[in-house]
């Protein structure tokens, strides 16, 4: 009970820090939302009026206090840019981001597992070297370039898939491929290394000693253990996939929260930036906290009070 409370305090502190930091970082960037909103056509008086309307004529600590107060009531405030509630702006874009992230995870699994297995089956063989070479190439290429090449190949030359947008499953395939190839290449290497390692373990020798076929040893004994670091790696990708798909979303005109974050920063839209960052931080902390609780249920060794 005590540890749960401690966890909760930890989480709240982290979130409060994240909100404060993102709010202040954007605030301290040169550039003012009222000026950016008013544009070059606005008069000085227009700008003053806008500052007042946006509440930017207040000292920064008053703005933060007001924001925090509303936040405690579960209100993320309004975007300075669109005037709409930030929660609404995020909700409108979240499904797309989740779809894209989920598809990318599937794509990368589809790449990583066969590639890792093929190379582990014969570590010195052609397949293994091919995987080495291909994954390094994909990792060395910037994701937006990869995206443009995919568009050229599948949308322009072959005309199989739409080049951009996010209205349907087909629209998200190319961006998911661009994103997933990267994660896939990275995790193929992780799997390759950990399979290689697992194959040297005592339990594999025991399995081999029992007279099992090499494929049974690989599939039933080595793979389940070797997958754990890969799954851990995917876990760490959650935050990146939620907020960091900015380049992919721009190249493919996908309307997700990553692109929203970038436009909000460009506009110095503090409430929107703080809202998105808070949301991502919340998603990551909640998954972590939930996992901690789950761990206590699953693993007796971690149940002892610290």
């Amino acid at each position, binding site marked *: 009970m005590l540890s749960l409370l401690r966890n909760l305090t930890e989480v709240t502190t982290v979130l409060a820090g994240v909100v404060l930091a993102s709010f202040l970082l954007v605030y301290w960037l*040169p550039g003012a939302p009222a000026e950016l909103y008013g544009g070059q056509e606005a*008069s000085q008086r227009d700008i003053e009026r806008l500052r007042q309307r946006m509440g930017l004529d207040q000292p920064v600590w008053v703005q933060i206090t007001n924001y925090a107060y509303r936040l405690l009531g579960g209100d993320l405030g309004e975007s300075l840019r669109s005037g709409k509630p930030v929660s*609404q702006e995020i909700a409108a874009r979240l499904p797309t981001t989740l779809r894209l992230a989920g598809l990318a995870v599937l794509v990368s699994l589809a790449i990583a597992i066969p590639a890792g297995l093929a190379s582990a089956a014969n570590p010195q063989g052609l397949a293994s070297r091919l995987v080495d070479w291909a994954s390094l190439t994909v990792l060395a290429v910037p994701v937006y370039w990869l995206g443009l090449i995919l*568009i*050229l190949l599948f949308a322009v030359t072959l005309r199989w898939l739409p080049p951009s947008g996010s*209205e349907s499953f087909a629209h998200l395939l190319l961006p998911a491929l661009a994103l997933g190839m990267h994660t896939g290449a990275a995790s193929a290497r992780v799997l390759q290394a950990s399979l290689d390692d697992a194959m040297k373990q005592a339990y594999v020798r025991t399995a081999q000693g029992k007279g099992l076929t090499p494929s049974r040893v690989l599939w039933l004994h080595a793979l389940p253990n070797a997958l754990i670091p890969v799954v851990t790696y995917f876990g760490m990708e959650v935050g990146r996939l939620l907020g960091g798909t900015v380049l992919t979303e721009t190249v493919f*005109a996908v309307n997700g929260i990553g692109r929203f974050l970038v436009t909000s920063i460009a506009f110095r839209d503090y409430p929107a930036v703080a809202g998105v960052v808070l949301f991502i931080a919340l998603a990551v902390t909640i998954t972590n906290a939930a996992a901690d609780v789950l761990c206590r249920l699953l*693993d007796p060794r971690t149940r002892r009070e610290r």
Partner: protein
Amino acid sequence: MIVVVNTKARAKTLALVLLLASGLFAAWRSTAPTLERARKPQHGDMISVVIVAEPLRLDPHDATDAPSALINFHLYERLVELTPDGEVVPGLAESWTISDDGTTYVFKLRENVRFHDGLPLTAAAVVANFERLLSPETALARADLISPFVQSAAALDTYTVEIRLRQPVGSFLRLLAHEALGIVSPLSIRASQENRSFRPVGTGPFVLYEWVPGDRVTLVAFQDHWRGAPRVAGLVFKPMPDGSSRAIALETGAADVAYPLDPIHMIRLRAFPEIEVRHAPSQRVIYAAFNLGRPPLDDVEIRRALNHAVDRDAIARHLLFGLARPLDSPVAPSTWGHSPVLELPYDPERAVALLSKKGGIHRPLHLWSPSARYVQDRAVAEAIAGYWRAVGIDVNIRLFEWGTYLSLLSTSDQWDVAVLGWVPATGEADMALRPIYHSLARGNHSGYRSAAIDRLLDQAIATGDARERLELYRQIQSQIAFDAPVLFLHSPDLTYGYRSDIAGIRVHSTEIIDLRAAYRRNRGG
């Protein structure tokens, strides 16, 4: 490599994966919100348009960005309209009279106009629009477009509106044609005043059907429009910030219209028979402000020398692929009131002579430019620096993200030259000159103070007679060209493309692409 097998990590990642999976499931099932009133459009006769960014507000009186202006142009109508050539023609007002002293305008409204919500257009509705903009409480972003000039608006009868001005304003009709002065339904005005959200309801040929934030804005044809319904079922505007993506969307047929197109893609897409690529003069002016507060830029001969040193024809021809016109005046050639008065041709020898007469420039000039704001802005900044280095001046270039740039220009005095752009939304010389060259203008980044220019600008705007005004604007442009408070560069063309089965697209030099009369040709017909 040693991998530590850890059950806690396993459980943790399992939980992460589960959470992601459940989120995914929820996401697949969600659908976009729709506006219930408008008729669901049929797919085939919609025209899809890819533009740079999503609109910010579909409230014309509060919108300041170009995408909003473009969409509001189609949702709303104004008392008078501008043709693509810049002529003032009747809009919601079918006729008008101007008093002899030029301060009272009486507009006769069309009698058969309805708003999208069914309300008839009346004088009272127009007055409500003006009062909304003039009211000090509303704090709308566009208030100062009319508040310095308009004294009052009143309904004389159901279809007659009288607008009184504080002083004669020669460009008032053109001002009324500004997209920001679209006439909004009185019900929308009341709703926004009662703190409910603003509903974008106008009289225009298109009605808002849905707005999926960040993804698309769909308009459908207004069947009861006074001119008759438009020839297409609707327009879909999709934001696509990346230039290559816009070009590819057009090439693959994912979009019917792309605006703007980057010059590099214009050249490539010209080869396709199913795509029409077009460019047209715009009123945008690209210039570089000299910081007159920093010597030796306070010296007019130094500024003239810096102008002589730069080959603006070559910049327009090569760096902008010929899709720009070199300036021959402080205003663009297609702006009403333009006079070709600039006499600062490319002449490096004269530049050197002028510079040495003044003892030269013995410190590096700090040239600032935004990055990815204007067409080829970075290359243009580098070209300017190259030309100045060729006449013996040391130049430091700094590139900025737009928000930072805008703010630092007004707060920092560390810059000598700053690349900027400007479009006069009313299409005439006052809007082209006053915001940049009047002593009190916010956009006068040079710090150029000329009592003569201020007086002439005020005199010109108060002049009713068009010929007299033109002469005054010629004098103003000539004086500014002589004083050279800026480096005059070019006016980039509007660039756009569309599939060849689309017809009826017009563009306004004020950077509006007009799709009100657009339609899709029948295949084979």
